[in-house]
């Protein structure tokens, strides 16, 4: 596999990991990678990894905060 192909696949894999991103938007974004150089793709990926980190952290934060809210609610009613 060549590097350009690998990098484009990586972009697609990162986009797939964003739960909720619809198929049309993903395709629109992938079209933008078609004429990117290896340097561009590397820059793109580095930033996508950063976003993926924030995205997954935000998903965890919200489920933990919901649990915390409900627990506090129960405690205050006791």
């Amino acid at each position, binding site marked *: *596999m060549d*590097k350009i192909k*690998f990098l484009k696949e*990586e972009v697609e*894999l990162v986009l797939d*990991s*964003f*739960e*909720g*991103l*619809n198929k049309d*938007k993903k395709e*629109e*974004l992938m079209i*933008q*990678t078609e*004429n*990117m150089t290896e340097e*561009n793709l*590397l*820059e*793109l*990926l*580095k*930033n*996508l*990894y*950063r*976003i*993926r*980190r*924030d*995205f*997954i*952290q*935000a*998903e*965890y*934060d*919200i*489920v*933990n*905060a*919901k*649990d*915390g*809210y*409900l*627990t*506090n*609610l*129960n405690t205050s009613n006791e």
Partner: protein
Amino acid sequence: MKLKQKKMTTHQTPEDKNQYPEPIAPKLPESLAMDPKIQTERDNIQGKVLYSSKPEEEGKFANPLEAYKEINDQQFAEIAEGKPGWFQRALTNRELLKARKKTVTDDILNKNEAANRHFSLLHDKQIKDALKQETELEALKKEKIKAAVKTAHAKTTGKVQNFFAALGGAPAAFAAGAINTWQNVRDERKKTNLHN
């Protein structure tokens, strides 16, 4: 001839260019102490989860989130540093990334289901406040994702910048996530009319 030495603050090192930015505000409220029943249920669920496809790595991480962050960061480092052999290592990482992504997604969904079950037991008068609370939390999450995309947009140029401009154009869909909201739970409860 005097050599000019570039000044460097205590917060900047030559490696900084490849580091992640500081956490982006706003932060969500910290989780409070957990209901013992839910905590036990969660521990039972997590106890069955494999964080890695490598048995020797089991127990290495405190939770699936840390395991996922590690492989994400490793993949980032391979590409950012570009050391010899990075291409092959990044290819190998894919399987591990895939396994940990499934684990982390399952963990989020399990936690969300537990919260939904907890929510479904609330009295009607508590539901309105809980929905308001969830709406605020969702808004904070969206802000955090939007801020991350905005930062990426600002840090790039040309075609890469266009990519992030397009990604930022769909913040609602992007930040919505796959988890069921309490609104869905309430609507379902109304349909079944179990508590009304």
